[in-house]
């Protein structure tokens, strides 16, 4: 049995109703590699779309914040379809992910390795492994991380393949994937809303939301809700001169 098959067998045996396989995989990965947290995300070409599995609160927070900031190792791993990471998030002057790094350090995370989840060139997301002390994964750990990456792809395809065929025409997602995506629904609504109010495209509207959330030190979801409720008006800087 390969390591990937062993992982799948182990999480399959623990699987009960109500606990997604994706969470079980993250917990299992964190335990076997002795990590502070593991998070699994779903992405498309537009970027980070949902946190579909975590080993706990720390990983959950660090994945959400990457979406809010629009930067971080999970995003870069999926975008580039390569393993990315940092052995010491606190070191160096020119940081690759300045905002993410300070959030990670504040949460007690000093190192991270993010691997892409993809199938034949189709990028599906990432699996990120967070560590509480600086240092790199050794060769054995890298092999294990690679096996978890394989298992994560199998879990994703398995979930998506289990949708009844009648639903396929409706672009269905498995509930374990669809629910985390729906969690972000208001952010996308607010993007559409703001694009009309500020007369900008969707990409720029999302950037405006992000910039406001970052400057106000608030979550993107809270800002989105305020925009939709009409409690908050965001204008592009250029239009203030008009």
């Amino acid at each position: 049995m390969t390591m990937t098959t062993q992982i799948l067998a182990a999480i399959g045996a623990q699987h009960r109703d109500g606990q997604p396989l994706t969470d079980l995989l993250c917990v299992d990965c964190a335990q076997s590699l002795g990590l502070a947290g593991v998070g699994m995300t779903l992405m498309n070409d537009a970027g980070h779309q949902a946190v579909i599995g975590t080993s706990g609160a720390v990983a959950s927070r660090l994945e959400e914040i990457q979406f809010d900031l629009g930067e971080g190792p999970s995003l870069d791993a999926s975008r580039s379809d390569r393993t990315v990471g940092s052995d010491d998030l606190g070191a160096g002057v020119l940081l690759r992910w300045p905002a993410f790094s300070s959030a990670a350090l504040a949460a007690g995370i000093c190192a991270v390795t993010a691997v892409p989840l993809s199938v034949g060139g189709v990028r599906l997301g990432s699996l990120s492994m967070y560590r509480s002390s600086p240092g790199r994964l050794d060769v054995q750990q890298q092999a294990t991380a690679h096996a978890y990456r394989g298992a994560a792809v199998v879990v994703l395809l398995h979930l998506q393949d289990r949708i009844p065929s009648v639903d396929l025409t409706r672009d269905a997602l498995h509930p374990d994937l669809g629910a985390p995506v729906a969690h972000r629904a208001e952010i996308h609504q607010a993007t559409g809303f703001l694009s009309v109010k500020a007369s900008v495209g969707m990409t720029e509207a999302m950037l405006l939301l992000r910039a406001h959330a970052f400057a106000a030190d608030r979550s993107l979801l809270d800002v989105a809700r305020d925009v939709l409720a009409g409690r908050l008006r965001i204008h592009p800087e250029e239009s203030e001169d008009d």
Partner: protein
Amino acid sequence: MTSEQRLARVFVELADTLVDEFDTLDFLSTLTERSVELLNADAAGVILADARGVLHVVASTSDQAQLLELLELQNDEGPCLDCLQSARPVVNVGGGESQERWPRFSTALAEVGFASAHAIPLRLRDSVVGAMNLFCAADSQLSEDDVAMGQALADIATIGLLQERAVRQSGLIAEQLQTALDNRVLIEQAKGVLMASAEIDVDQAFRLMREYSRRNNYAVKDVARQVVSRTLSVEHLRRS
């Protein structure tokens, strides 16, 4: 080159399915051509079952071989079909027995100039995905070694085929997942556009798109795409 070296080279050729431009038909043509060379046959062909179990002639080294295989499928008799059913090689069936088991096939075989036909299953463990036919001008017998070599070639080809199918299937699921994700985002953005343009709430926004899509027989995702690109206005959604 010794026969072992030739065999090893053929195995590598058949195992090399991890190429970018893998083509099932080319791959099976290679299998039939090499089998003809290594087993001293004169023609060969492959019959494959599709996902619904329907049989198709997918590769042949000659028109005669193709004709005979099509004939097997049409008349529902022949060594290839017996091989598919039993999942075992059907070889060295003599003229008399052949005439008795497959009368129409045997007559056609002689008509196109062959004296014997053999079939080897394409199988992996319990699943039989097809069979390879070998046709010989002489009334030849395959030795035990020949059958073993033919089966080995068929086995490695089957692994290649199933692997390619699995990869293709995974790719399709992955693309479908991406599309579902893209459309979810698009629909939410469209709701926001309508909320801001018409001062309506989120449920009303969705209802507006859904009812328009039903009346005009469009998919909601396509309506959403047009709303987001501003080619479909609130007024238009309400009117038509």
